């Protein structure tokens, strides 16, 4: 990587503009959006809700499929974050049951961290809009059943972001996630610099 410029110029990354919201994960822990979940990490973020019969199961299964392939690349530096679109309904307990279906209820030794997030409806709404995971069309946006089947992949520190359709085949998804969210040349491109 080229050396960073002198640090006198402030940044205006997405990370700098997001509020440090308090959220709850499926393990019942309180986590801070910026401080705990985004800063210093590589992330794959997606919206879901536990009763979804549309795109969520497909997206969650795809994440479960690629999780193993991401571990050797990122180790603990990558988090998968699935936040609910129905915070009133989806309690941490419900999220834990949902996570269990994808083998993500407990911390795993050789898999990237995967957290399912809920919180106050205001906090979830601010996070959703802050991350841009909303539809321009208010009618579509109000209807959780019509939410987008996309993964927001990024490296908040480097302010590199990309929305990847979760329907991409696993090989393409892994390539996209590592390239966009990677910290090092090798993580991104699979080549020693």
């Amino acid at each position, binding site marked *: 990587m*080229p050396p960073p410029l002198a640090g006198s110029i402030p940044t205006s990354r997405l990370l700098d503009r997001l509020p440090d919201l308090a959220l709850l994960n499926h393990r019942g822990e309180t986590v801070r959006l910026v401080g705990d979940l985004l800063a210093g990490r590589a992330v794959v973020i997606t919206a879901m809700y536990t009763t979804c019969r549309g795109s969520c199961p497909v997206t969650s299964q795809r994440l479960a499929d690629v999780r193993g392939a991401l571990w050797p690349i990122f180790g603990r530096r990558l988090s998968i974050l699935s936040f609910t679109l129905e915070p009133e309904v989806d309690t941490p307990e419900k999220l834990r049951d949902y996570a269990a279906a994808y083998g993500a209820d407990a911390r795993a030794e050789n898999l990237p961290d995967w957290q399912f997030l809920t919180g106050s409806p205001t906090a979830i709404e601010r996070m959703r809009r802050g991350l841009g995971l909303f539809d321009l069309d208010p009618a579509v946006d109000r209807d959780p059943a019509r939410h987008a089947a996309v993964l927001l992949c990024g490296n908040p520190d480097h302010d590199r972001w990309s929305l990847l359709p979760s329907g991409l085949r696993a090989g393409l998804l892994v390539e996209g996630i590592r390239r966009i969210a990677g910290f090092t040349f090798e993580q991104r491109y*699979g*080549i020693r610099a």
Partner: protein
Amino acid sequence: MSAVHEPLLASRRDVLKSAFAGAATAALATPVGDASAADPFAGATVAFDKANQSRLPPWAFTQPLVVPRILRPRAIGQFPDIDGQPVFLPDDPVPVGRTFHGIAREWSETPAAWEAYGCNPTLTGAAAWEDRQKCFRQIPRLDGIAAHFAIDPQQDSIKYLGTGSMPNWNAFPIKCYRIPMVEALLPLRPDAAFPARVFTYGGTAPGPMLRMRIGQPVVVRFDNRLDTETSVHFHGGHNPSHADGFPVFYVLPGKQRDYFWPNIVPLERVPEPGPQGPYAPALTEAQSTVWYHDHAMDITAFNASKGLSGMMQVFSDWELHLLRTGVLPSVGEASVTDPDQDGLAAGVEDPARPGYYLREPGKEPFFNPFDIPLVLQDKIIDRNTGQIVYDPEAHNGYLGDTFFANGVAWPVARVGDRKYRLRILDGANARVYRLRILSEADFIRSQQAGLSADELAAAARPFLQIGKDSWMWSQALERTSVVLAMANRADLIVDFGGMVRDVPPEAGPQVFYLVNTMPQFDGRGPKGKLDDGGDPRVLPLPFDVPGRPLVELDRPIALVKFVVERETAEFKRAHPDASIVAGKRLMENRRRIPDADVVAVREFVFERGKGAWQINGRFYDPTIANAAPQIASTGQRDGRDCAEEWVLRNGGGGWWHPIHIHLESHQLVSYEKDFPADDRIGPVDAVPVRPPIAPVDVTADIPNTELVANHDTTILGPNTTARIRMRFRTWPGPFVFHCHNLEHEDMRMMFNFEVVPDPAQDPNVAPAARSHGNAVTLGGRDPAAPAGPVGELPWEQPPVPPTPVREAGEFLIDPRGPRPPR
């Protein structure tokens, strides 16, 4: 040059100084932004007041317009002087021709398909290079002799007689440029507290301008010092796959790649074969106004919003003739000469700006103060930090609140009272412009009271359009507005002299504004009001056609202020005004591609799908070919030249998709619009209307001059269908076509087409034998790995982790619609 033109010649550095001075005096960092919970920018330091985009900051039109400086080659020479030589010494020892993507065969070997042109594929190196002078034929060389052309006023046509000529390949020695891609600190708003970190080509945004000549090959070494992967696309050119900016042909951080742009005129089969055979250069397809920008996969929009784009100009001898004879604005001989044409000349480089030409007649190639390139862009700038903000709504299409021309926010340009050529590029990620020119009085009236669309049309000053995208038109059309979608270029002649003719000189300098009247508040496309969900009826047809109702901003957004000053009689004598008038014939019409040449018709539906963007229900996959057109030279059927017809259909939802096809220009065959479907799409819920209700063929609404011209980007408005035709010539290998709303492109509204030399070759049957440069390097054979990874040959660095063949073999051609459960 008179003092009138000096501001146009101001160096970027002067402007930076003045901008910094402004920043210092501006009240530092007044936080803006509302902290309400519904505001996605809550707690942030940026605010985008979309309802009031026409509101100007107090300092608008205080910074002079900057015309990008012309980059100078580092080396110029014949093939043996360049090939394998470290011409960029002392700072870069890597020889030319050793850092291409793959080992680009067309640099030193001959693709088999060129046998049809008479090339000998067994020749290599300099011998192959020389051989091409024969197979790419001759193009007219003017040298000031108009007798090479016959202008027939009866038939209203212009014919090349071809008496003086030069090789279409290697008419002049090869020019070698080197452009580092670097982060630079540029102040983008004087009211921002800090300069912005900008991704630049060579330290400026837009990047340096290249002026090239048809028949003169160019190698550009792009050296990536950014913290992002890049891929450089020559937009509107006809170049080899490896030099075209294929999305995964990356220039990775810390790496460099040579881009080889031969600047040839493509060949076409002619009805009456000449002594040289059945092919002749298609002279009406010589490019003029082109540009370059980033094209890296998934991250093009981000890279482009951060600054990676630049203008280029290519000069054909016919265009030089129009300049020399004063049809087009020029300063005569200096506007048609390049001191570096045959080798590096002495005394032409600017000592204050090494690597760039002195902006003086006889020093700068094709020097022309009356030809002003304008790159229009919009970005959100955080006032507190000065940084470019790529906001979270951007995945619909990134819009900005600060309007730039050539990288300067709301610039002012001083011009003389004469005709100018404005070559305007919509370099925005997602903004569609409708450009008009208003007098100062009309502009003030519009800002105070608002003007109806009729009033705007009446007030708008007419200008001439002489070209679209890369190519000049066959004649000059008078217009009062021009619609520019993303990536479109408009080649305009604006007669500032005519505009002030009736004003007494004592009245002093007169002011005119270039304005944007397109109402647009998000990436979906134009719509009437901020709160609408998208209204396709705002601009029923994405063309500048009279007689169709449209909605315009009653308070247009001013983009550039022009101050027209009187030139002295002496200056006018030395530099006569251009002679061009409306209706003036400029070129031959491009020959229509006849029905008989069409060997394949393909339909592509562009629509929103699963929260992202799809073509024919599929997301972009760089490892497969979605279409495999035959290269034209091998597609002769009964002596004809093969072509394809593509049906580009907007899948609905009120979204706008400008469709850009790489490699080739296309002709518009027809344009259809389903007007009743527009009414069905409510102002809120944008659901595609299927099947079409009552499509109307509106082809006749488009002026024939524009219709039969060359296009590289055709905008698909809501509920429209365009039929286009094109030939796929010269270069085998993978290319892309995609929506030029850059966010839609990144979110996978893109397809590959692989131009194949052999009609029997289906690139998806054996994925290892195609893709990522292999087809143009070793004919698909990778001796190191016979089973073959898909991807570039691992000769230097594989740019992406290789995908095993068995994976690429899956899901090749999906049925449309949902995949059945496995």
